[in-house]
């Protein structure tokens, strides 16, 4: 009987291994079309492939071997998983403990800062210099902002791109690049547009948040999704205000003039890199202080049990709106920065996909963990840029979203607390899985 059970579990595992690897094979294979619907799938298995030049064959051979290896590792993990885990955490305990000491941590941060400072002089490839600003640092900013909303306050916002769009359009507006005349007819210096963009994004966070944050969390997700889409529709169609689908392209680079001091950012990505880095560090410090302040603890309390939080005098709506507005601030700045650096805005940037892309950075890094989110954003964006810069055969840019979707599922199934988990979050998830606490009940209103 036991023997039979074990073998059926084994067959199931074997089948699952092959299914997973087959999906992987199709994911990385060539594209198809409605005219030739099977081309992509058959091509994924039959296209020629070689394993580091060792032998020549077809893709399925490589993936067959991968499936077997996968199955072997899985089986081994089931047998020895707890032991391996125990051994790893035992050997890691010492370095982990050392790493958590304050001077060591500050040292590590200093090293990372130093690397960040010299990086644009080491990496001189123009693609990567651009990517470091537009695709990595801007996304770190966005992920930091969304982390406040999703990670700290536990609110699933799927329309985060709206604040990014507002920041970008606000910058275009005050510098006089939009068909809509700038406020009071004053063309602001583009550097002065930064606070305007941040404040406008925060205000719109309050305006959007006040009515919608009364909703249950899963409804909130859908409403924010709709809001992101509405922003897109309006930006696309209000030609007299936003410039319509074509957008606007006369946004000046950041610059300021104080007496004889003239600073212009437009000469290349490097000055923008340092400006963005400075803002990333500022936001990092602010958000980290916030997380450990009374406000951050209130967010945690609301996230863990809204009713209990309310009963000890925390006003949930107030703190949720605050989280929305604070998260929007960094997105507003990121929008302003993008608008200024690429000197144009158009609605095509602000899609729902964009919001999901930011979400995946937060989930991957670890909801609520600032270090995790920064590291996660850097890793994912670097890999994405690498794939875009040097695409493997059959790779289309939009295929990235396939991987992103798969990553979201995999993370939720195997490591919901993320790459570098936040201690609070990790504990909550563990308690919740053990049936204690009401984590994220705020999300469904399912308070027992």
């Amino acid at each position, binding site marked *: 009987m036991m023997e039979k059970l074990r073998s059926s579990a084994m067959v199931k595992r074997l089948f699952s291994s092959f299914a997973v690897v087959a999906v992987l094979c*199709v*994911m990385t294979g060539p*594209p*198809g*079309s*409605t005219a030739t*619907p099977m081309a*992509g*799938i058959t091509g994924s298995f039959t296209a020629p492939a070689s394993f580091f030049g060792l032998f020549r064959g077809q893709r399925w051979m490589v993936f067959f071997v991968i499936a077997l290896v996968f199955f072997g590792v899985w089986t081994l993990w089931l047998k020895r998983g707890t032991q391996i885990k125990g051994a790893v955490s035992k050997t890691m305990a010492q370095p982990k403990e050392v790493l958590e000491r304050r001077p060591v941590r500050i040292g590590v941060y200093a090293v990372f800062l130093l690397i960040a400072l010299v990086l644009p002089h080491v990496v001189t490839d123009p693609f990567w210099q651009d990517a470091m600003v537009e695709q990595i640092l801007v996304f770190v900013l966005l992920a930091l902002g969304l982390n406040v909303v999703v990670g700290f306050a536990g609110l*699933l916002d*799927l329309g985060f791109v709206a604040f990014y769009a507002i920041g970008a359009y606000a910058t275009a507006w005050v510098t006089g690049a939009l068909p809509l005349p700038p406020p009071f007819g004053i063309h602001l210096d583009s550097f002065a547009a930064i606070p305007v963009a941040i404040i406008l994004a925060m205000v719109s966070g309050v305006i959007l948040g006040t*009515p*919608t944050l009364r*909703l*249950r*969390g*899963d*409804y909130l*997700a*859908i*409403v924010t*999704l*709709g*809001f992101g*889409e*509405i922003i897109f*529709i*309006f930006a*696309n*169609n209000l030609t007299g205000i936003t410039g319509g689908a074509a957008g606007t392209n006369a946004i000046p680079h950041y610059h300021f003039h104080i007496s004889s001091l003239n600073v212009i950012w437009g000469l290349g990505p490097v000055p923008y890199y340092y400006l963005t880095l400075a803002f990333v560090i500022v936001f990092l410090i602010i958000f980290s202080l916030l997380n450990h302040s009374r406000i951050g603890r209130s967010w945690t309390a609301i996230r863990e049990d809204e009713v209990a939080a309310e009963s000890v005098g925390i006003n949930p709506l107030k703190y949720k709106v605050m989280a929305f507005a604070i998260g929007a601030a960094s997105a507003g700045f990121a929008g302003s920065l993008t608008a200024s650096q690429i000197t144009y805005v158009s609605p095509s940037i602000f899609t729902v996909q964009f919001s*999901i892309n930011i*979400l995946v950075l937060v*989930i991957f890094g670890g909801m609520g963990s600032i270090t995790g989110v920064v590291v996660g954003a850097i890793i994912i964006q670097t890999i994405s840029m690498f794939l875009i810069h040097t695409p493997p055969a059959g790779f*289309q840019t*939009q*295929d990235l*979203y*396939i991987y*992103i*979707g*798969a990553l*979201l*599922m*995999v*993370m*939720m*199934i195997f490591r*919901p607390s993320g790459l570098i988990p936040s201690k609070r979050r990790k504990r*909550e*998830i563990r308690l*919740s*899985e*053990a*049936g204690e606490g009401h*984590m*994220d*009940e705020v*999300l*469904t209103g*399912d308070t027992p």
Partner: protein
Amino acid sequence: MSGFLHYFTSHFSTLRLEFWNLLVGGFANGFIYAMVAIGYTLVYGVLRLINFAHSEIFMTGGFAAYFVMKVFVPTTSTPSGMNSVLLIALGVVVGGVVGAVMATVVERVAYRPLRRRNAPKLAYLISAIGASYFIYNMAGKEFGRYNTAMPQPYINHPVFTIFGAPVEMYYIIIFVVGVLMLVILDRLVATTKLGRSIRAVAQDAETASLMGVNIDRTIAVTFILGGIMGGAAGFLFALNFGVANTMGFTPALKAFTAAVLGGIGNLRGAVLGGILLGLVESFSVAFLPGEYVDVTAFAVLVLVLLIRPTGILGERLGRSA
């Protein structure tokens, strides 16, 4: 002021002229929304979760039916008579079956592992978003990221008129298929043993399992039922609008609005909400430029959630129908 007045009088005159047209079109769209909304409501009933991947079930149903139509509809002439009826029935069945398969896969891969672990709700939502994202981009990779017209298995023509508004064949197909499927589902849930187990799980999963209801099986069946309705709706939608990997997003968001409007978890509420939303949207065409029609659905959603979050008929989880 006179401009303002003119705006309204001119729009009301379009409304008067177009009233019956808009009514018929609104009902047809409404039935499609209702069929998709049923999927949201069923899953919500048993899991208390919005199935974010439902839009992709709709899309897969549409694509499956498209490929079948491509094989069976002759390219030289449009079929008519009995051939059309059979082809449309085939499309509905294929769309429904593939929708059900996709729904099962989503449940197995994106939900069941989390349920085993008793994961927090946020994990379900994110996992389902990931599944949705994965499926529609995968479809984009395999079948191209553009809209393709469906080979037409019937000749679309006005069959009769209501007060001068022509009722096209397309609308009649939607009415017939929609009413048939919705009635069958309603009876299934209200009268059969299967339906009773779904209602029992919706009411109180723990007690239901103590009474001998197999929760895993019931949840799987619920996903299958929702998948059949969603996949078939995908086919009906694609008949007119064609297939594309992103075709599910907007209709599903509207169907969700419909489910909330009628009262989520309430089957008849979903139907009522779907038809109402179809009508609201259809009549908004008389007042708004076409690009903003999609905005009305979101506006309805936000208003309902703020004013009456339980919907028109109220959340009646677990009661018969």
